[in-house]
């Protein structure tokens, strides 16, 4: 698996999984709150979880399509 | 006390505000660094008036230059700086601060029954950015003022004189100020309305400010990005716009107009609001189609974000995009037309007192309709190919910005002057002033349409001799307009010296600002009134507001049909 060759990619992979899981747990904890700040927090936590997915895509070498330099 | 309509909103915050900020006593805290929205509004007004006079003088230099085909007064490069500064200053330092900063600050919190805006300190900061930015802008004359027009298209603006950097800084600063005010007003209108003031009981000026706020803090920030990029490209050579280095001049045009078209509506929607206040008051009848006027302001504000590229039909942007931009631009005519018809219907069947504000409102209807119709000629893409970049555009934009925004500013100034100063102005002089401005304005700008169609491009210090007659005609008319403007300031001074005391409600209007003393006391409302009815129901026997009888300190009487109209 050449895309996982670098130590950086392994760190990113593990980190993204851990951070993403905790982000989703936090999101679940926020889910039923209704204040303006809670709604914004939900949106931002969701996007952050999406960011973790992006990191996973990078770690597996799926993105960028041209391959990292 | 009458019961409140269901769904009323309350704001205990008002009741406790003086607990937080006691009235200042020192001169500096009271009149210079005041956090009182009324003082800040008047500060905006004075500062804006100073810039208005300066920019007006620049305009007269432009018209004087164009008295002769080869330019009478200044060298071409000086001329370029003068019209660039005229445009920049009028847009950012006169019309926008006067409509939102001055009238928005003074009137809007009073009309919603609040004691101040949501963030008084932010308001103070936003105001003080304004004169500082203005000084920075005009100090660019010392180092070579920007000369590429108020639009500052690259690449020529990249090569412009050093003052262009100051221009970027000044406009960026005023943008920050505008953003602060927009956020402040939106929170104020959302959270601080008096009990009983539902959205459909808000005066239309408040609706107009409400519709304008998102434009102020969204579009203005986008302009901030464009300006920052221009600045770092000029100063640090960072390539964004220079085509020789992989940048794109069209990028600037997209970013600039993404702001500057909504800015057109920042400059006109509050004007619509002023007209919607003045007309029912002087026609003594409810505004016709309240909801349509209110919602059309919001519709125009929303549509304004998707029409910017109609300024770029000849620029070489992707051709297929021209059609949607043309169609959406034309769609804006519908809500605008609804407003104009509603104002005319408000006049119909009224008992109209033709005081100066009412004259200005009627003049506004006529000139703004003209400007709107020429806008249609510009929106139609094939016609725009001929008209873009000519005096037709100059004439059109002055019809909407002078015939629209400045006329409504005059209307608002006369209308609220008694409230601000506590004194009446000289009505005869006011009417003379209106006719000077109205006739002078129309005679200045109508001929410019024809010149543009015939082949006179904008931003030129010289022209073909065959255009001289109408240029001279326009210039002479512009002097009449300038004299009318000076007369306006004389009227204000005269009012201070000789004006009669106005009393709380000289016009017999129904909105909340007229329920309290003129000028209003520091905390506006000793007790926040409960709003019980719609704002313009002159025939409604029910009172507009309810007051606690035990708390009789408010100098206000509910207005209803039996309330006599004062004679002055």
């Amino acid at each position, binding site marked *: 698996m050449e895309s996982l060759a670098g130590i950086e990619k392994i760190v990113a992979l593990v980190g993204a999984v851990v951070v993403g899981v905790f982000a989703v747990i936090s999101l679940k904890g926020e889910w039923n709150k209704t204040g303006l700040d809670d709604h914004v927090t939900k949106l931002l936590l969701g996007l952050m979880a999406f960011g973790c997915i992006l990191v996973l895509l990078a770690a597996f070498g799926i993105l960028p399509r041209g391959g990292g330099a | 006390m009458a019961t409140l309509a269901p769904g009323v909103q309350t704001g205990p915050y008002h009741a406790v505000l003086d607990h937080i900020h006691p009235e200042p006593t020192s001169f500096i805290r009271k009149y210079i660094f005041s956090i009182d929205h009324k003082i800040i509004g008047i500060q905006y007004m004075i500062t804006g008036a100073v810039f208005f006079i300066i920019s007006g003088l620049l305009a007269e230099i432009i018209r004087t230059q164009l008295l002769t085909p080869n330019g009478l007064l200044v060298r071409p490069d000086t001329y370029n700086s003068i019209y660039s500064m005229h445009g920049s200053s009028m847009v950012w330092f006169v019309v926008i601060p006067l409509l939102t900063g001055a009238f928005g600050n003074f009137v809007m919190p009073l009309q919603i029954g609040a004691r101040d805006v949501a963030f008084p300190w932010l308001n103070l900061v936003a105001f003080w950015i304004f004169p500082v930015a203005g000084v920075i802008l005009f100090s660019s004359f010392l180092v070579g003022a920007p000369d590429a027009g108020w639009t500052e298209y690259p690449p020529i603006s990249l090569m412009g004189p050093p003052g262009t950097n100051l221009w970027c800084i000044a406009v960026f600063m005023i943008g920050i100020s505008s953003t602060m005010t927009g956020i402040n007003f939106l929170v104020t209108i959302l959270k601080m309305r008096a009990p009983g003031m539902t959205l459909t009981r808000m005066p239309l000026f408040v609706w107009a400010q409400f519709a304008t706020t998102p434009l102020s803090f969204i579009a203005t920030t986008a302009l901030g990005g464009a300006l920052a*990029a221009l600045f770092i490209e000029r100063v640090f050579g960072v390539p964004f716009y220079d085509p020789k280095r992989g940048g794109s001049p069209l990028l600037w045009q997209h970013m600039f107009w993404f702001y500057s078209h909504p800015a057109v509506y920042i400059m006109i929607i509050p004007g619509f609001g002023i007209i919607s206040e003045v007309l029912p008051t002087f026609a003594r009848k409810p505004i016709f189609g309240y909801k349509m006027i209110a919602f059309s302001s919001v519709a125009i504000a929303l549509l304004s974000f998707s029409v910017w590229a109609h300024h770029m039909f000849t620029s070489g942007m992707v051709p297929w995009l021209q059609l949607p931009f043309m169609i959406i631009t034309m769609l804006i005519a519908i809500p605008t037309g609804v407003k104009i018809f509603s104002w005319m219907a408000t006049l119909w069947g009224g008992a109209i007192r033709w005081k100066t504000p009412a004259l200005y409102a009627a003049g506004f209807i006529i000139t703004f309709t003209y400007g709107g119709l020429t806008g249609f000629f510009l929106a139609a893409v094939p016609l725009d190919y001929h008209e873009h970049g000519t005096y037709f555009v100059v004439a059109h934009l002055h019809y909407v910005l002078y015939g629209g925004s400045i006329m409504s500013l005059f209307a608002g100034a006369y209308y609220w002057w008694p409230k601000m100063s506590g004194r009446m102005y000289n009505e005869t002089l006011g009417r003379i002033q209106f006719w000077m401005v109205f006739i002078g304005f129309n005679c200045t700008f109508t001929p410019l349409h024809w010149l543009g169609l015939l082949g006179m491009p904008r931003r030129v210090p010289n022209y073909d001799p065959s255009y001289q007659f109408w240029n001279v005609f326009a210039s002479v008319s512009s002097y009449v307009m300038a004299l009318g403007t000076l007369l306006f300031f004389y009227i204000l001074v005269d009012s201070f010296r000789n004006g009669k005391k106005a009393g709380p409600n000289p016009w017999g209007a129904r909105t909340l600002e007229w329920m309290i003393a003129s000028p209003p006391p520091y905390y506006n409302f000793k007790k926040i009134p409960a709003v019980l009815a719609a704002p313009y129901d002159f025939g409604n026997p029910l009172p507009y507001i309810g007051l606690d009888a035990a708390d009789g300190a408010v100098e206000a009487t509910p207005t209803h049909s039996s309330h006599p109209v004062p004679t002055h």
Partner: protein
Amino acid sequence: MAVSVAKQGYHLGHHDEHDANHDEVIYRETRDMRLTGFVLFLGTDVVLFSAFIFAYVYLRTSIAPVWPPMVDGHQLPRLDTAFAAVNSVVLFGSGVTMHYALEAWKHALKRRFNLFMALTILLGAGFLGGQAYEYAHARIGGWSGNTFGASFFTLTGMHGLHVFIGVWFLIALWIQTSRGVYDDHRFFGLTAGTLYWHFVDVIWVVLFFLFYLW
């Protein structure tokens, strides 16, 4: 409850300025307004970033023939995706720890709060360090060399500035908590700080995609 009581009292003109709930009323009302204002401020910041993002996308898709662009006959290299991925995880992680810090504060868990606050600030500073490393190693011609460098350094620079301000913001908040400025039901500053920090993280999600993955 305090709010509704105060509202009625206010309505009837009986609102007592010396009510024990008086400060509470002020806090609730002003918090609501400050929160709305703060969220709107974050919205304007989104627009400011969007302006530069638009510039980047426009220059990349409509103007440049190839991307990364050519300079002196050579195509510029891509940025170091692997390193940026690690750095992103650091920043996202700080967002999660910040969330846990705020939750701890809400439940009056002081020690937990201190732990997560320290973690957040450390991770934030770590991200800035990573960004500095990235700047030193990005071979894309510098800030003023070409449109790639212009977009990259302007946008990530703006973002880095936001992170930098955010780190000091959090430090200031931390100092305030130790001085007893906030209690477990009046802590708007912490809410604002958390929202700001999340916002900074989410901006990075977009930048990470645009510069490293696209």
